[in-house]
């Protein structure tokens, strides 16, 4: 194997969003190798893929170097995936349909979380791969056929042939449909409870780690479970609106309900769409249709335009078909599907008013009163009156959840947990923040070589998370830039206008230089300095060419800049 690959794979730092380790934008990289990305979305959120994407393009670089003899039966997709998954969750496509359904289910619930996993915590630990794993992942390098690389995001399926046979049909160009990435289920289990070290605790604390139970959400869980199960039992259709601020466990609870009902042996089909993951709202229809078709039989429709999917779905839900299983449809981030005419939400909730459809719609959004405030009457009338609100966690709840996640580990002081929960509950009540703070503070504790998490670590982590990028940027500005900023603030305080011509700024600046006993930059240099500040949007420059009359204003609130300058001088 090439030494370059090993070196790159070893590199701990992550490239900035959407760029390869060499700094080239990923999409361009792909084009140069004449590989078109499989779906649009991966271009959009290349950053979300994090390390995966990095690995992907590294392989693109190196694949050409690999001699053909090393080919083996393993497909590139499975090889690439195998780096990031546990062997236990590896499912082969030849297994029975039930198994397939099952693993798809876990995939749906966890696949996205594992994306977050890499995104949220780029810990140095997770980037480094253990030598054993690396060796296993990298030794059999697959043949570099570009067409295979397109399939990188999919698990190998037996239906590949049938998809190929659909091939010619694809020529009728329709807007590219976003497809759910077929990721292997990477379930971060809370298994190693016995391990009490801080490192084990950190692993357990990941916000994507799927807990088997949701403490402090029993009431909501029971409500949703009852709603879904009773509607399924009575073979009718209803819709429920679930609201709550981020990080209160809305989606997790719904997923848990689905798991619970499946375990209870109730037969239904679960379709999940997320408004955030669609390139445009209308694509929700193709997504739903694709998931419905995909789950059922082998006939795989890879690409279907939104309007066709919509017509088919409308038809499907209007006709009574006793063979079809009832469907539970989860619409996450519903507010993003609100178009001007709201015809998309109208259709979705209209299905749920038809008794033939046997459809349960669970719509999730943050806004408490979205149906009343934003939706038109004809949509909110169809949505119905069933609501469930997820309240922000109180500090006792956060504390008990944290203790639950930490499994009462002796490595974490109780004071620290209480501090975090009080801090978070006072501001937002978002559990994810609390988990992030604890995880970050454990990392800080580990960095300093301690094996007990104390209050001090938590406090410094809170401080770190609270600080803000622009403020940091001002703190690290050059002396001259700081002087210019001070000059602008002084001018603002004198005149009261927030926009001022460069001539006024330079006057003030020269005065300040005289006071500070700094030799002022020449005018052109000062102007250049201002433009550099403007490029990072600490300043905003009005359009114009003439340097004297060009107007500037601060890109941040004055308080922020003052605060940052004040701290910088200390």
């Amino acid at each position: 194997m090439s030494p370059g690959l090993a070196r790159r794979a070893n590199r701990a730092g992550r490239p900035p969003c959407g760029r390869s380790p060499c700094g080239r934008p990923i999409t361009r990289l792909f084009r140069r190798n004449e590989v078109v990305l499989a779906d649009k979305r991966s271009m959009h959120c290349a950053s979300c893929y994090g390390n995966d994407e990095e690995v992907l393009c590294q392989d693109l670089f190196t694949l050409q170097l690999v001699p053909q003899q090393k080919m083996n039966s393993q497909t590139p997709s499975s090889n690439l995936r195998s780096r990031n998954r546990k062997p236990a969750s590896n499912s082969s496509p030849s297994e029975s349909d039930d198994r397939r359904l099952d693993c798809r289910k876990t995939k749906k619930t966890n696949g996205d979380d594992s994306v977050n996993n890499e995104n949220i915590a780029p810990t140095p630990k997770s980037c480094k791969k253990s030598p054993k794993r690396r060796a296993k992942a990298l030794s059999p390098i697959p043949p570099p056929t570009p067409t295979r690389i397109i399939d990188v995001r999919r698990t190998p399926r037996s239906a590949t042939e049938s998809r190929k046979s659909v091939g010619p049909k694809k020529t009728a160009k329709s807007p590219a449909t976003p497809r759910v990435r077929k990721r292997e289920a990477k379930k971060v289990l809370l298994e190693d409870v016995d391990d009490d070290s801080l490192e084990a605790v950190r692993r357990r604390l990941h916000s994507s780690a799927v807990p088997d139970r949701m403490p402090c959400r029993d009431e909501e869980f029971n409500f949703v479970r009852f709603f879904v199960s009773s509607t399924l039992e009575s073979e009718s259709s209803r819709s429920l609106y679930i609201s709550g601020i981020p990080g209160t466990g809305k989606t997790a609870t719904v997923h848990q309900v689905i798991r619970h009902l499946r375990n209870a042996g109730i037969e239904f089909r679960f379709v999940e769409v997320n408004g955030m993951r669609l390139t445009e709202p209308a694509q929700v229809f193709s997504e739903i249709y694709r998931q419905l078709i995909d789950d059922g039989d082998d006939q795989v429709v890879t690409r279907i335009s939104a309007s066709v999917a919509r017509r088919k779905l409308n038809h499907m839900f209007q006709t009574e078909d006793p063979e079809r299983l009832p469907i539970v449809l989860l619409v996450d981030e519903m507010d993003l599907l609100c178009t001007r005419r709201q015809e998309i939400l109208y259709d979705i909730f209209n299905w749920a008013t038809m008794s033939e459809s046997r459809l349960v719609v669970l719509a999730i959004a943050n806004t408490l009163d979205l149906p009343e405030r934003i939706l038109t009457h004809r949509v909110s009338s169809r949505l119905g009156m069933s609501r469930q609100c997820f309240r922000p966690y109180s500090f006792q709840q956060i504390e008990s959840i944290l203790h639950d996640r930490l499994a009462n580990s002796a490595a974490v002081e109780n004071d620290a947990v209480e501090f975090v929960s009080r801090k978070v509950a006072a501001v937002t009540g978002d559990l994810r923040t609390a988990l992030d703070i604890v995880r970050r503070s454990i990392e800080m504790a580990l960095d300093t070589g301690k094996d007990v998490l104390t209050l001090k670590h938590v406090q410094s982590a809170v401080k770190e998370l609270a600080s803000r990028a622009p403020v940091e940027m001002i703190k690290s500005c050059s002396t001259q830039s700081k002087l210019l900023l001070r000059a602008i603030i002084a001018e603002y305080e004198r005149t009261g206008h927030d926009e001022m011509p460069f001539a006024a700024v330079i006057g003030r600046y020269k005065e300040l230089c005289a006071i500070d006993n700094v030799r002022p930059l020449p005018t052109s240099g000062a102007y250049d300095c201002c433009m550099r500040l403007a490029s990072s949007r600490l300043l905003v420059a009005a359009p114009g060419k003439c340097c004297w009359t060009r107007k500037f204003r601060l890109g941040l609130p004055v308080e922020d800049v003052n605060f940052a300058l004040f701290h910088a001088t200390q």
Partner: protein
Amino acid sequence: MTFIENFEATGLVGDDVKALRRRKMSPTPKETPSRSLRPRIKAKSPQKTLNFTVKKRSNAITSKAVNEDKCPMTCVRSPLKSPNAVAFRPVPDTAPCGRTKERQPALKSRQRLFASPSAEQDSEKSKETVELRAKRSLGMGLPDQLVGRDREITLLTESVDALMRDEAPGTFYLAGQPGTGKTATVRHSIRLLKKKHKFDYGFVNCMSIRTPADIYRLVLESLMGDDEKVEVARTRLAPADQLADTVRQRFSDSKRSTVLVLDEMDQLASRNHQVLYMAFGWAALKSSRLILIGIANSLDLTERLLPKLKLADPPRLIQFRPYSKDDVIAILRHRLFEADNLLDNAAVELCARKVSALTGDIRKALDICQMAIDKIQRRKDSNGGGGGESVPVAGFKDVLDTVKDVYGSVMTRASVTLPLQQKLLLASCLALYRTGVKSPTLVQLYRAYKKACDALHVPPVQDHEAASNCQLLEACGLLLVSKPTRKQSTSIATVQLLVDERSVMNALNDNTLFASVLSTVG
């Protein structure tokens, strides 16, 4: 004999109408279900052998209702006010003849309210709980019998019937609030008309169109049968003009009457309303036999948007009033017939009064009842479910609770307790409001908030956190944060209270805190 009575006399009511519909609607699994709802003559034939005894009283009531309809201005209430006046219902004990019974196993799982309660169903009854049956019948699907819309149904069916007999075209416009039974009325009327006439029927929901070309295509598709599907597929990529021509041809030389329903018609409105005019123009084509039924919410859509129609032939307006209290009671009783012990009269009346006083949206009433039944069921479950059906159920309290939940203010409904920092922000916003700053900028708000924090000895959060807290308050429906455009500075963003002072005080739920904040700001 009036039109409705004709149908009643032939016994085509209730169950067999439904069965007929079922048969038509549910295709065999392999068959690609047809999009058109064109009547199939085959399906009709067994109906003639059916033998229903219709209650004598129903005829009397119907004719009375119809007589009253002669003067449309008088407000005709549904004749079905009391639970024992189950007018159109077939007499329970006379089971339908063999054919229907054969079909029943397939339909058993989906038995609806007015399926004749035969012996089979009695055995089923023991298996299913009352709640399940009640919930099924409370579903929002099209019922077999529309209660409380007799006037509109009669008006529509009679006029369409007359037009069909004269082989004449005609246009109708149905207007009414959401949830007043417009679409259901049309579907029900079509169901009745299909017994009498052979005609083509197309139903298009205009909500699902994006361009004018879509509407032509959808109209064609909804009218075509299976055999003609291929043609439609060929026209799929045709330009809009060509499709429009095809539609025009389709309507101009028709041997049969065609009923075309355009639901949510206001979605067709464009700048010059060309499509709307064209849709109404189809009926005015030479030797056209199109009966166009448009449905929308606004009462004056045709007058407001289409003034030129007045010159030619204005569409006949049928107005749907919001359901009155009595209508809602009748509907709920009708639906809850099988589970009548579940929600008592007082509960039903409470629900009806509340809904009719606010919107008259029947979907809301049905939903409230379902939620109340949910509550009953959950209570039963939590009691261990040992009592079975013998558990005394008083529905009134549940309905009251549900109504409170549904119509209470958002914050009480969710019973959200705000975190302290958000309370402080909200309190300072209200304090600023009291001092005359109606919509402070974020910076102003943050300053006031910081002062309040200092006074209360609470460590303030940084301003970007405060800004994100403002957004969370916006999600709670308390504040409105205006979003500055890209060019404007973020400090320009302003904050406004979305609710009145009292609701803010309720949300704060802490008078001392607000008093101290007010003292620092003022």
